[in-house]
């Protein structure tokens, strides 16, 4: 089994359209929430979202190319280009053929799907755009990355709701670790701001009417976000040999299913995933100096996640910094695990822990050190990133710092 390094990161988010903008916002504890502009929210109970501001597809793609791409696929390619450029990799034909691309997406090309239904049911036209299917398919992000970067190795997409990208990164990690792939581009992308999708979230009553306050007593739901993040993973030895910058080592993945309820999270399932990630990464609970929480700011998730962390870390829990960066970039669904893996790797690289923004009052049901509102200058040795999906499917990623 080989050790695996993260050598490239690309991010497109509501708090920054590049990796460094994203990090600067996390470091400053600055949320990216504003009234949603991509669709009319006057008939929806919530208004705010974390949109990627100023994104113009034609800044990145030719017009002919954009015809074939939903917004979520455009995000995937832009983030992958940044990650690959950041890694400084020199491509050979052999490397292109053994590099894997694994992406996560929960809802696929919602903008295109919604537009098709408007044509059919509201406008009353008898036909939809012929590219509707290739735009909405959840694997479109992975396919477009492959075509754009001429990478022809194993390429696929995982859809496990809000854990999609974490499962995707975990699979890519496993392929690089085992030797099945010499390199991987892994992450997730999502663009859920379509009217029908937002009505469905409204009906579920888990979206806040004002802001996202993870782990706080005042928490009243998530704020939806869009964006993408991609990581470049390669064997540690290869990264060292070519003198690449290593953000962090990826050291483990832990997965579990609650096998209990479709939407009510189970602390036991989450705790099993965290323990599995520690075991897979050869880490003891004492080595973990930071957890990037799933932290959606729903009543149910945050209390269950706090219980799960206590099950795994016991009395050390009160000294263990935990933050939810969803308080800034929002809940990006199938991309969330990737944005949060990027945030965790950057935290280990930069020696700062991002905060939980918008935090007001402590909730005894979420008895954690949530790094309230201000980033903390701490060099953690190792960290976890939690993703717990609707459907009870959990994925936890484990990372080790390279510096310190």
């Amino acid at each position: 089994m080989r050790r695996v390094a993260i050598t490239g990161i690309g991010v497109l988010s509501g708090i920054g359209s590049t990796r460094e903008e994203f990090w600067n916002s996390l470091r400053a504890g600055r949320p990216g929430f504003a009234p949603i502009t991509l669709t009319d929210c006057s008939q929806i109970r919530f208004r705010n979202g974390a949109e990627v501001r100023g994104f113009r597809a034609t800044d990145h793609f030719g017009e002919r190319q954009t015809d074939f791409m939903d917004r979520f696929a455009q995000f995937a390619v832009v983030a992958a280009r940044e990650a690959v450029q950041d890694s400084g990799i020199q491509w050979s034909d052999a490397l292109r053929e053994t590099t894997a691309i694994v992406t996560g997406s929960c809802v696929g090309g919602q903008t295109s799907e919604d537009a098709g239904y408007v044509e059919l049911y509201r406008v009353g036209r008898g036909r939809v755009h012929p590219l509707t299917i290739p735009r909405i398919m959840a694997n479109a992000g992975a396919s477009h990355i492959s075509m754009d970067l001429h990478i022809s190795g194993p390429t696929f997409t995982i859809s496990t709701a809000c854990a999609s990208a974490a499962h995707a990164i975990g699979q890519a990690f496993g392929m690089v670790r085992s030797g099945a792939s010499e390199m991987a581009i892994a992450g997730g992308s999502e663009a859920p701001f379509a009217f029908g999708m937002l009505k469905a979230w409204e009906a579920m009553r888990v979206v806040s009417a004002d802001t996202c306050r993870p782990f706080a007593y005042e928490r009243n739901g998530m704020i939806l976000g869009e964006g993408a993040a991609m990581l470049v993973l390669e064997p540690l030895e290869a990264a060292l040999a070519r003198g690449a910058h290593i953000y962090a080592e990826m050291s483990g993945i832990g997965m579990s299913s609650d096998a209990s309820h479709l939407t009510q999270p189970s602390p036991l399932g989450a705790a099993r995933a965290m323990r599995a990630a520690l075991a897979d990464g050869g880490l003891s609970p004492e080595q973990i100096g930071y957890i990037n929480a799933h932290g959606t700011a729903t009543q149910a998730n945050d209390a269950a996640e706090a219980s799960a962390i206590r099950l795994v870390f016991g009395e050390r829990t009160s000294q263990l910094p935990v933050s939810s960066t969803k308080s800034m970039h929002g809940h990006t669904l199938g991309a969330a695990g990737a944005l949060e893996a990027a945030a965790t790797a950057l935290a280990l690289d930069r020696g700062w822990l991002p905060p939980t923004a918008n935090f007001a009052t402590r909730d005894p049901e979420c008895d954690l050190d949530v790094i309230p509102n201000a980033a903390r200058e701490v060099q953690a040795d190792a960290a976890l990133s939690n993703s717990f999906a609707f459907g009870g499917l959990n994925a936890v990623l484990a990372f080790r710092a390279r510096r310190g």
Partner: protein
Amino acid sequence: MSDDLIQRVLKTIAEAQRLPLEQVTLDSTFEALGIDSMDGVNILFALENEFDISIPDEAARGIRTVKEMAEGVDKMVAARVSN
């Protein structure tokens, strides 16, 4: 609250939860009926359709019994009529 409104609330809850109507009474707690948070959201949806009302998230939060739910619906129906 009118008897008619109470009966419609009980029936809506029973149907949404797929329970025999006689099991759902004004004194039932959600816990006793096995209604969890997602079931609660389903019931709110059914009540919104039944009474043609829109129940805000804040109003729905913290409701734990059939009586509280019926009282909430009663207020909203009254507000709709007076508008």
